[in-house]
């Protein structure tokens, strides 16, 4: 690709048009991703968007990069496999709250712990959209709009940032779909961070949770430098309202995999075979 021509955000959009409902917060995330890519002058050919299943997981096809739209909950696993095998690529995984915190919850925990150098954007609208609006792990206890849980899910919602911190994620940020420019900046920072960066995006669902339009009034920027101490971050994440945005926590940690210290020999395969000779 010719990088001499400076690409604009719209140049990072593919010809495939989003199927999202007008009013969906995911448009904003898509917008922010392409803005971040333009700002970083990222090579389209060397970038891969990977997702699972759900409304937000449709995003990779909309970006003019390489992409993989996998199965429900497994986007992070595909992304880590790719990044480990191809460290030269920029890898971004994305998906929704059901995909990432429910069916893919184990991968989320272990991706935080493993610290492969990649970015994960979770678009949290507190609901399963593709299957008609069931409660997700981040749905409020008393949200009674789903026929599946007519009296509300009745269980405490996850705190994704706290979970990420406890699992060892070294970079935790939060953005809001109502502010795509701030989100773009956070995504750019996340991509540039050396390690696993987790961006939690409050992204409204106009169809199943129209009450989320109220978020606009609740969301507030934290406006302080990111915490670099996990103890302090734990206090923050356990006690905050979940609506503060910005880069909340960032700490450098050794990424995985480490550089190999094993000397390479041209005839390594021959030697391996020879080890079986009597």
């Amino acid at each position, binding site marked *: 690709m010719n990088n001499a021509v400076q690409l604009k955000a719209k140049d990072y959009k593919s010809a495939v048009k989003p199927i999202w409902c007008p009013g969906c917060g995911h448009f904003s995330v898509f917008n922010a991703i392409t803005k971040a890519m333009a700002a970083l002058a990222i090579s389209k050919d060397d970038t891969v968007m990977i997702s699972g299943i759900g409304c937000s997981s449709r995003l990779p096809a909309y970006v003019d990069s390489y992409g993989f*739209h996998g199965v429900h909950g497994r986007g992070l696993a595909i992304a880590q496999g790719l990044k480990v095998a191809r460290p030269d690529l920029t890898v971004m995984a994305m998906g929704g709250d059901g995909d990432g915190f429910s069916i893919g919850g184990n991968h989320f925990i*272990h991706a935080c712990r493993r610290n492969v150098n990649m970015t994960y954007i979770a678009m949290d609208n507190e609901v399963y959209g593709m299957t008609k609006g069931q409660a997700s792990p981040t749905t409020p206890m008393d949200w009674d709009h789903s026929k599946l849980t007519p009296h509300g899910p009745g269980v405490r919602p996850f705190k994704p940032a706290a979970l990420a911190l406890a699992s060892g994620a070294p970079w935790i940020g939060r953005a809001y779909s109502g502010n795509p420019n701030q989100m773009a900046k956070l995504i750019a920072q996340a991509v540039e961070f050396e390690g696993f960066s987790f961006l939690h995006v409050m992204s409204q669902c106009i169809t199943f949770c129209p009450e989320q339009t109220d978020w606009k009034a609740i969301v507030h920027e934290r406006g302080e430098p990111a915490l670099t101490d996990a103890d302090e971050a734990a206090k923050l994440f356990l006690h905050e309202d979940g609506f503060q945005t910005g880069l909340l926590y960032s700490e450098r940690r050794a990424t995985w995999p480490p550089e190999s210290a094993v000397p390479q020999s041209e005839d390594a395969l021959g030697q391996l075979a020879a080890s079986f000779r009597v």
Partner: protein
Amino acid sequence: MSSTHLSIAITGAGGAGVISCGELLLQAWARLGGRGLLRKAYGPQIRGGESAALLKLTEDERYTAADHYHLLVALDWDNFSRFEDEIQLGPDTWVLCETGAEIPAAVLALQPHVLEVPMAELAKSAHPDGRVNMLALGLLGGLLGLPVDSLCQLAQQKLARKAEAYQDAAVASIRSGCAQSLDCELHPPALGDTGTWYLSGNQAAGLGALEAGIRFVAAYPITPASDVLEWMAGGLEQVAGQLVQAEDELAAINMTIGAAFGGVPAFTATSGPGLALMSESIGLAVASETPLTVFNVMRGGPSTGIPTKSEQSDLNIALHGLHGDAPHLVLAPLDIADCVFTTGWAVQLAQQLQTAAIVLSDQFIGQSTAVVSEPRRCAAIASAPAEPSAGGDYLRYKLTDSGISTVASPGDVDQRFTADGLEHNEKGTPSAKHSDHQQQLQKRQDKLEQFDYGEQWAALSGSGPVAIVSFGSSSAAAAEAAVQLSASGTPARTIALRLLAPLQTDALAQALAECERVVVVEQNHGAQLYRYLRGQMDFQQPLHSYAMAGPVPLNAKHIAQFVAEVSAV
């Protein structure tokens, strides 16, 4: 006087070291040009429980489990009853045990020749740290005429990381054992050529995979597949590959897909329960045409089943376990050495055909170690000519005559696409249109069915009116049965299937030409191969099923009897 084989069981408990004893004995035997198989059997304890090294020294490499033991070396009798099913003794069996030990009544009832040796005392007098297993190794070496220096050297090699005194004790014990003369008559088989290899099926599979180009492995531990992954962890380091220990099988298969999407040949190994967990994403590999190899080491099922014992009962899930119409490759190595060939072939086919290959090994060939002639390798498959997409618009899933489309990987210039598990059109854009679905289903079927798999789809041997059809590890027992049948005047041909899907029905029909009856041999309860074959083709001759569940290995004599019986009707 030599015989066709000599079976030796070495049993003991609580860290007695019977496995090391068996390994060293077989290695020393192999150095002389001997052939043989070592199986291992364990109780459920992780350490300290009873274990057995089950050796079968042979004159050929048709490795089946012994159905009778000529020699039992009991380092102790703790919980020996656990192995009663597996270690069959008789009046012609020599039992070598500690002087004064209480021999189980069930063993005495068989009236074997009992040889009592004061092993503990001899070991202690050889060295303060002298050990009974090494003394027994010396005794066995003496009985088989193995050079004592060779045994000592092998022991030192194995114990190289232990303290020097510990090694000295082993050597002293071996020498002391070798110096004893025992009144025991054994008939070891003839020796063959040297220049052999000594390895397990799981190691062989790992080597085959690396040689075929695998450079990424995602691993989740499971018995009896973990040792493939462990061997590959070390191997990959040597060839600048990567291994990730995943959090579960769901992650393992998807990491494999990710790496393969990146253009790096990728592999995972598992066993039945893990294969079940991986199934959804193997479907994703099929739909997205992402090449990968899943090496499944079968064990007794369903559910947790019998994790340490062999069975061929994952054939159904390997063939039919994917949702939707999801054509993919299913292969099975025929024996330990063939694990190199078949795994290498599977990797190459998966890469070439851009699909998932499931390889069905099992605990028997996976975890047994054998002496084999240098394994045959799979020649490189020539890759299909790239069909460039028209007009510069890259079509990842372009419809072609062969069904194979040109694959791009991230980093390739201007070939960007999004791989998708959703049905898609030629470009990869999600589509629910009937025409796209029909075309892509057909394409994915065509590329597998139109490919020329050559002669390797099966190993054919012998001739005769009866054909014994098998797959994977049951093929050795089938071959042995055919030899016995031929010797008794009813020649049989064997067809050992290496490629199970797509089934080469034309080639199979040809191999069955002028055949009067077919016996399908497999190690499972549900006659899975038999039913599969019946569903896939019309047979001109009667088809009989010999299906026997694990954990007891298939017995060639019983197969031969069955074939004789059905042929006599």
